[in-house]
C-alpha cells in the first residue's frame, strides 16, 4: 500500500482499537453504578476503570484520530505527497509506547487517580510518564502538519490554503498549546512527588495549570468534527459550502479563544479571586461564537444541497437530502445532539447556574452528550468517508453504516438524558456505588438503570461499526476509488486573504491572551506562602 495512505490508516485503526475496550469499560461502569448485579463488584475496580476509560477517551483515542485525519488531509491536499513521514512514524510509536506505559499501572490498580489526576492525590509515576509520552508523540504530528501546510503554500503561491488543511493545522497548533498545561503540571509538580524526590505539591497551582488543558482539549476533540462539517459534508450532500470564509473564521476563533477560558472550571475553587474568574467567563462567551456561526453556515450548506435535489418550501429541502449518505446523516444527528449539549454548556459557564450542578452527574452527562454524542458520531462518519479512499475498497454497506449511526444517536440520548436528570436531582459524580436502600437514592435508580441500558446499545453500535470497517477492509479491491475530495465553497475566495490564510498572527494573539488571562492566576502561586501539601498515594503509603 502507498505509504502515505498507510500512515493515516494505521493511526485511525489504532484510535478505534483503543476506543473499543474503553467503551466496554464504560458499559461496566454504568452497571456498577446501578442497582443491577455486576461482575467484579468491587469499588476499587470502578475507580481504576474510570481512570483507564477517561485516559483513553480523553488523551489517546481523539489524539490518534486527529493525527490520522490530519495525515490524510495533508496527503490528499498535496496531491499524494506527504513530508515528514519519518517524524510521523516516530511520533506514532512514542504515543503508543506512552499509552501502554500509562495503562499498565492503571490496570494493575496502582494509579486510580482519574484522567484529571488532581493532586495532592498521587499515583504511579509510570502513569504520568505515559501521558507525557502520549503528548510528546502527538507533538511530532504538530510539526508534520505545520511542515506540510508551509509546503503547500510554497507549492501553490497566490492561492488560499484548502480549508481542510488550514483547519487541521489550526487544530494541531491548538493541541500544542493545550497540552502545555497538563504537561507542565505533570513534569514540574507531579512526577517529582510520584518518584519520591519531593513530598509536597501546590494543589492550587496544579489545578490551575490543568484548567488550561481541561477546556481547550474539548475543542481539540471537536475540531475534526467541525472540519468534516465544512469540508466533507457539503460535497457528500451534493452541494457546496455556503461560506469558506466563515469556516476559516470559525477555526481561527477556536484557536484563539479555546485556551484563555479554563478558569471557568475553577469557579467553585478557593484559590482564585472573582476578577479573573469573570474575565475568563466572559472570554468563554467568545468561544461559543464559532459554534453558533457554524450552525448557520452548515445548515445553509445543507439547504443548498437539499434544494438542488428538488426540495421545495420552507422545510422541504430537509426531506430531499440524501439521508442514505452516512456523512449527511451524521451531520444532522450531530447537530441535533449539539443543541442540548451546547445548551448544557451555557449553563455550566454561568456561575449562578453552575452552582446547582457543579460536580454532579449533570457534568458527566453533559460531556458524554456533546463529546460522546455530537463529536464521536462525526468521527464515525469521517471514518466511513476516509476508509474507502485510504484502503481503495468501498464500504460494504452504507445502509448498515447509517443504521449504526442511528443506534449511536439513540444510545447517547438514552444514556445521557436520564443522567442529566439525576444530576439535577443532586447525584454527585465519580461515585462507584450508591446505597439504593436509601429512599433518596432509590428515586434515582430507574434513571441509572436506563442509562446502563443505553450503554449496551452504544457498545452494540461500536461492534457494528467495526463490522462495517473490517468487512470493508476484507472486501476485494474495487476499481480505483476517487481520492478524498473536499467541498468547495459557492464562492471560492478570489484572492489570498492573508489573515485567513496563515496562523502566525493568530498564535501571537493567542499567546497574548494567555498571558493576560492566566498570567496573574498562575503567577500568584509563586508569591503565596504555606499552601504546599503532602502528596497522598492511594495504594502505597509513602514508602520511599
Amino acid at each position: 500500500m502507498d505509504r502515505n495512505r498507510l500512515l493515516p490508516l494505521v493511526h485511525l485503526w489504532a484510535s478505534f482499537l483503543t476506543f473499543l475496550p474503553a467503551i466496554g469499560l464504560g458499559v461496566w461502569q454504568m452497571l456498577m453504578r446501578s442497582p443491577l448485579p455486576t461482575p467484579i463488584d468491587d469499588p476499587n475496580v470502578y475507580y481504576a476503570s474510570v481512570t483507564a476509560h477517561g485516559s483513553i477517551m480523553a488523551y489517546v483515542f481523539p489524539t490518534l484520530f486527529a493525527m490520522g485525519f490530519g495525515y490524510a488531509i495533508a496527503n490528499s491536499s498535496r496531491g499524494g505527497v506527504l513530508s515528514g513521514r519519518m517524524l510521523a512514524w516516530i511520533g506514532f510509536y512514542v504515543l503508543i509506547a506512552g499509552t501502554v506505559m500509562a495503562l499498565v499501572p492503571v490496570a494493575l490498580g496502582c494509579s486510580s487517580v482519574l484522567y484529571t489526576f488532581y493532586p495532592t492525590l498521587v499515583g504511579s509515576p509510570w502513569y504520568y510518564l505515559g501521558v507525557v509520552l502520549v503528548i510528546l508523540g502527538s507533538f511530532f504530528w504538530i510539526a508534520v502538519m505545520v511542515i506540510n501546510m508551509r509546503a503547500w503554500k510554497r507549492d501553490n503561491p497566490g492561492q488560499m490554503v484548502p480549508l481542510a488543511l488550514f483547519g487541521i493545522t489550526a487544530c494541531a497548533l491548538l493541541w500544542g498549546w493545550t497540552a502545555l498545561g497538563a504537561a507542565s503540571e505533570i513534569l514540574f509538580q507531579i512526577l517529582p512527588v510520584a518518584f519520591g524526590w519531593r513530598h509536597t505539591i501546590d494543589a492550587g497551582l496544579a489545578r490551575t495549570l490543568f484548567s488550561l488543558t481541561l477546556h481547550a482539549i474539548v475543542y481539540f476533540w471537536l475540531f475534526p468534527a467541525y472540519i468534516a462539517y465544512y469540508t466533507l459534508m457539503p460535497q457528500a450532500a451534493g452541494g457546496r459550502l455556503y461560506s469558506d470564509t466563515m469556516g476559516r473564521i470559525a477555526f481561527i476563533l477556536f484557536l484563539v479563544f479555546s485556551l484563555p477560558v479554563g478558569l471557568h472550571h475553577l469557579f467553585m475553587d478557593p484559590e482564585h479571586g472573582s476578577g479573573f474568574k469573570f474575565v475568563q467567563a466572559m472570554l468563554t462567551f467568545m468561544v461559543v461564537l464559532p459554534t453558533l456561526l457554524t450552525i448557520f453556515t452548515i445548515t445553509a450548506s445543507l439547504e443548498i444541497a437539499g434544494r438542488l435535489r428538488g426540495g421545495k418550501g420552507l422545510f422541504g429541502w430537509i426531506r430531499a437530502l440524501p439521508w442514505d449518505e452516512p456523512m449527511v446523516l451524521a451531520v444532522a444527528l450531530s447537530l441535533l445532539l449539539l443543541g442540548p449539549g451546547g445548551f448544557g454548556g451555557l449553563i455550566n459557564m454561568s456561575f449562578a447556574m453552575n452552582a446547582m450542578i457543579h460536580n454532579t452527574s449533570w457534568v458527566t452527562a453533559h460531556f458524554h452528550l456533546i463529546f460522546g454524542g455530537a463529536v464521536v458520531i462525526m468521527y464515525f462518519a469521517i471514518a466511513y468517508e476516509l476508509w474507502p479512499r485510504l484502503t481503495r475498497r468501498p464500504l460494504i454497506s452504507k445502509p448498515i453504516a447509517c443504521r449504526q449511526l442511528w443506534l449511536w444517536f439513540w444510545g447517547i440520548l438514552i444514556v445521557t438524558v436520564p443522567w442529566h436528570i439525576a444530576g439535577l436531582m443532586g447525584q454527585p459524580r465519580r461515585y462507584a456505588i450508591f446505597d439504593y436502600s436509601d429512599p433518596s437514592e432509590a428515586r434515582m435508580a430507574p434513571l441509572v438503570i436506563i442509562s446502563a441500558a443505553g450503554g449496551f446499545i452504544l457498545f452494540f453500535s461500536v461492534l457494528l461499526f467495526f463490522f462495517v470497517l473490517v468487512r470493508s477492509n476484507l472486501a476485494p479491491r474495487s476499481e480505483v476509488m476517487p481520492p478524498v475530495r473536499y467541498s468547495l465553497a459557492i464562492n471560492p475566495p478570489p484572492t489570498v486573504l492573508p489573515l485567513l490564510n496563515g496562523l502566525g498572527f493568530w498564535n501571537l494573539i493567542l499567546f497574548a491572551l494567555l498571558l493576560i488571562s492566566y498570567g496573574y492566576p498562575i503567577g500568584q502561586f509563586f508569591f503565596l506562602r504555606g499552601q504546599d501539601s503532602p502528596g497522598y498515594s492511594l495504594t502505597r503509603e509513602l514508602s520511599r
Partner: protein
Amino acid sequence: MASSNGNDNLSGLIEEATVEGTERRWFYVMAAMLGVMLAIIVLTGATQMLHPMSDVETIDAKTLHLRGEFVESNLGVSTRPDGSVVVRMIAEQYMFVPQCVVVPASTLVHFRLTSADVTHGFFVEETNTNAMVVPGFITDVRAKFRNTGDLKMPCDEFCGYGHHGMAARVVVVRKDEFMNVSPGERGICGPQ
C-alpha cells in the same frame, strides 16, 4: 489539487454579497444574544449569593491540628456578633469533621472548610451551596437556608477509594430553636 469537482456548475450559485450579508446578520444576532446572556450574568452577579468566592486564603494543611482556625476545639458551629453563623469543618479522607452540624434557617451561614489531605468538594443538597475544598486553601461560601430540614452534604470531588462514602449532614432548624443550642456544644449533632 484534491477538492470537489469544480465542474458541477455551482460556483456563484449565490452571490457572495448575499452570502456575506446573511452571515453578517446572523453574526450580529448571535453576538447580541451572547451579550444579553452576559448582561444577565453581570446583573445576577451583583445580587447576593450569586458570585464566585473570591478571597484567597492559604493555610498549612499539615498543622491544622496544632494551631489556627481548624483545631479540634474550634470545629463546628459558632455565632458571630452580627448574628451570622460560621460552620467550620475539615474535609479529609473519607469524612467531614464534624459530620453533622445544626444551623439556623433564615440566617447568613458561612461554611469555612479546608482539606487535611487531598482535594474534596461538597454541596448541600437542594441548595446552591457547592464548592471545592483544596488542601492549602480555605473555602468560604455563604448560604441562607429558607426551609428547615435534614440535608445531606456529599463530597463531590474524587478523593480516593472511599469517595462514595464521604458525606456530612446539615440540620437546619428554626432560628429560635437554634438559640437554644448552648454555645459549648458547637452545634454538632451526633457524637463529638
